[in-house]
């Protein structure tokens, strides 16, 4: 015996083993019956679907364990369809497995690589084609074609320009102006400071001028959350404190991270949480970020009361609200 290491040898494809249905006619008949039953079940499924579509009213409910009180029509249609389709599939597969030939077949693979001859021929064809077009010899055509193709690529970009207006200062501004009343959302009722108890919150929007319609675009920028604390709980700069009124503080509800509505206020901890990405803001410190991915506090709206005693904005927001963008300066 030589010193060479001998690997374990391939014993080759094992001999084909006959199935029951191949040797036993009774087993074959049984398999045939099973397939037929599956196809028959499928037909029953379709009948259930037809019945549910025509005869079952959409306001009927049936109690099914696990599922609960379920809409009968929806369930009948769905289960009918599921049974109809599944059983066709199961029948076909069972048929293939038990009654169709199950002897494994060997097929040879072919090589993908073309012959060297073909490759050389190909290169020659391409070269001669290119040469006969004269692309190499006529640089003027090549260059002008390049310029033309490049320029034509601008067309779709240009045509897409009218998809929308330029941003201008739209991202920087909201509808809030000095003296705009805060009104409840929904309900549009103006709010007096005494309407809010300590620990109360209110979802607000700017009051509309008569005849104005509120659009979602407005709400997306104007939504403001009012929170009332004890004034001594604030830990604010003098300027920010002057933006509050008797312990009532107002923040933009649009998250400074990705624009979700931040309105999840915890009365005891005085924290605001954004349910989208869990940025947490401390209300007592002008919505400073204390947890999560947001990098900036929520913009604070300066509020006061007007001559009639209703809460109004002292001034517009002093910074853009919502998520950051390139042109944002702070």
């Amino acid at each position, binding site marked *: 015996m030589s010193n060479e290491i001998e690997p374990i040898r391939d014993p080759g494809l094992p001999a084909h083993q006959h199935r029951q249905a191949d040797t036993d006619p009774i087993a074959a008949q049984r398999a045939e019956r099973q397939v037929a039953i599956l196809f028959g079940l499928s037909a029953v499924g379709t009948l259930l679907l037809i019945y549910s579509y025509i005869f079952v009213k959409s306001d009927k409910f049936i109690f099914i364990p696990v599922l609960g009180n379920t809409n009968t029509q929806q369930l009948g249609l769905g289960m009918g369809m599921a049974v109809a389709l599944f059983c066709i599939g199961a029948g076909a597969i069972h048929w293939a497995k038990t009654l169709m030939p199950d002897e494994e077949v060997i097929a040879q693979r072919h090589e993908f690589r073309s012959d060297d001859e073909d490759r050389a021929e190909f290169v020659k064809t391409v070269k001669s084609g290119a040469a006969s077009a004269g692309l190499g010899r006529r640089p003027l055509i090549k260059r002008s074609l390049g310029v033309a193709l490049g320029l034509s690529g601008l067309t779709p970009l240009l045509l897409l320009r009218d998809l929308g207006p330029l*941003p201008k200062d739209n991202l920087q501004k909201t509808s809030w102006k000095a003296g705009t009343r805060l009104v409840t959302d929904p309900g549009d009722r103006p709010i007096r400071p005494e309407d809010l108890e300590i620990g109360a919150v209110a979802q607000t929007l700017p009051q509309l001028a008569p005849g104005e319609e509120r659009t979602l675009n407005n709400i997306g920028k104007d939504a403001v959350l009012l929170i009332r604390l004890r004034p001594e709980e604030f830990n604010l700069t003098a300027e920010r404190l002057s933006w509050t009124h008797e312990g009532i503080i107002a923040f933009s509800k649009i998250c400074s991270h990705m624009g979700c509505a931040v309105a999840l206020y915890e009365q005891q901890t005085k924290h605001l949480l954004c349910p989208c990405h869990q940025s947490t803001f401390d209300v007592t410190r002008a919505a400073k970020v204390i947890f999560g*991915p947001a990098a900036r506090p929520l913009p604070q709206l300066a509020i006061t009361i007007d001559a009639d005693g209703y809460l109004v904005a002292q001034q517009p927001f002093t910074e853009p609200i919502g*998520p950051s963008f390139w042109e944002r300066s702070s």
Partner: protein
Amino acid sequence: MTARERIAGNVAGYVDDRTGAAKWMKKNLTKVFPDHWSFLLGEICLYSFIILLLSGTFLTFWFDPSQREVIYDGGYQPLSGLKMSAAYASTLHISFEVRGGLLMRQIHHWAALIFMVGIVVHLLRVYFTGAFRKPREFNWIIGVGLLTLGIVEGFLGYSLPDDLLSGTGIRIAEAIIQALPLVGSYIAFFAFGGTFPGEAFIPRIYTVHVLLLPGIFLALITVHLMLVWYQKHTQFPGPGRTEKNVVGYPLMPVYMAKAGGFFFIVFGVTAFLGAVASINPIWLYGPYTPGQISAGSQPDWYMGWLDGLVRMSPPLETHAFGHTISWNILIPGLILPGIMFTGLALYPFIESWATGDKREHHLLDRPRNTPNRTAIGVMALTFTVVALLNGGNDIIATTFHLTINQMMWFSRIGIVVLPPIAFVITKRLCLSLQRADRDLVLHGRETGRLVRMPNGEFTEIHEPISAEKAWTLTSHEQIAPLELPLADSAGVRRPGALKNKLRNRISRATAVAVSKATETERRELEGHH
């Protein structure tokens, strides 16, 4: 010849006269497909795609892709009289007034989830068995493209009904666009036709969702399948299976029946889910308005990892020269996914560069026999799963009485620490499994029967394994590590020495293996006993 055969013959003749299809068909009807359950994962994707086309077409007959404001006067009382978009109202109409409409909506949505699950599981199978190697790199790249497009298509699809949850998703997508340096706010304004949410976005993504992307899908899937057909399917190692052949069942009739039957199975299972399990109950979410939000606002699972990454991102933003760059959005929302998908697409080339293996492969690897690849895969998977879990951290926190803060810190640390740990553990596990294979081949199967030897010693009887099994466990190649020269024949350092050194290093790591059992060893042991 019966009358029926005559008619069939005439039709076939008519077609062949004009197309010459008989020659092609003759060859391909006997095409051989290897049988393994994991080879059907790609079929799950193909069939769900067909289900998506069928059910989606049904939905378009009633869906009104418009953000025009309407007052709801349909049958669902809890929303009666509310303002909403026509898109939302028509989705309610499909759900409650069209018979089978809710079923179709649910089938469509479940099929989308199954489509994405199928893609991921199929990708994992292809990755861990090395089916992406030469000559199948193109198909790997197409697959990665389909995965990426699938995520986009799914997101656009569930955004169409304009409900509170999906509107929140669009809001977040807008924030990602807006965060792009330099052009962000312009692209956002172009995409939305002005300020968010506007009235243009849903009609626009509708066209993309039902026309543009399905068209691209159809083209890519066709090429994907044609390549599979032309290159023939890979097969697992086993007796009689070589790099030069393919062992399995012919298309006609076995594979036609099996694959065709499996289409109905996938459709049936999807219909079953659509019948018994509610999905995307938009009537409960309510119509979208930017002032409202629900606790636990999550995307569908295939976007969940992205949301998880965004959640765990540190609060980084740069403010300089009057401009803002939101790293807290750009890194988790664009840069990391960009790196992940590029790495995924380039993996076949990276591996063949590292191992120096430029040959064709049609026999699959058992994952344990390529410890490095398997470990890298598990590492990437761990990264994604941590991100995905963090995407549902609030639901997990309330279900298991944890805090979202704990979950977040677990994810922030885990996403850095766990993948390398997973790599090391997986690699060791693979090597242990190799050792187990070797023992199995050399010593046979443990029977559990104890025998007392004449000298009083107890031993367990080992049964030798079959020749087929022994071959399956040892047929893989064990490639020696690369030894690229660092210096030329004159002993002078070559220009590419550093690169070669790196490749040698990686190749050495890749080639770590428990040497497989050989016939020689087997015989030696037998002589011993």
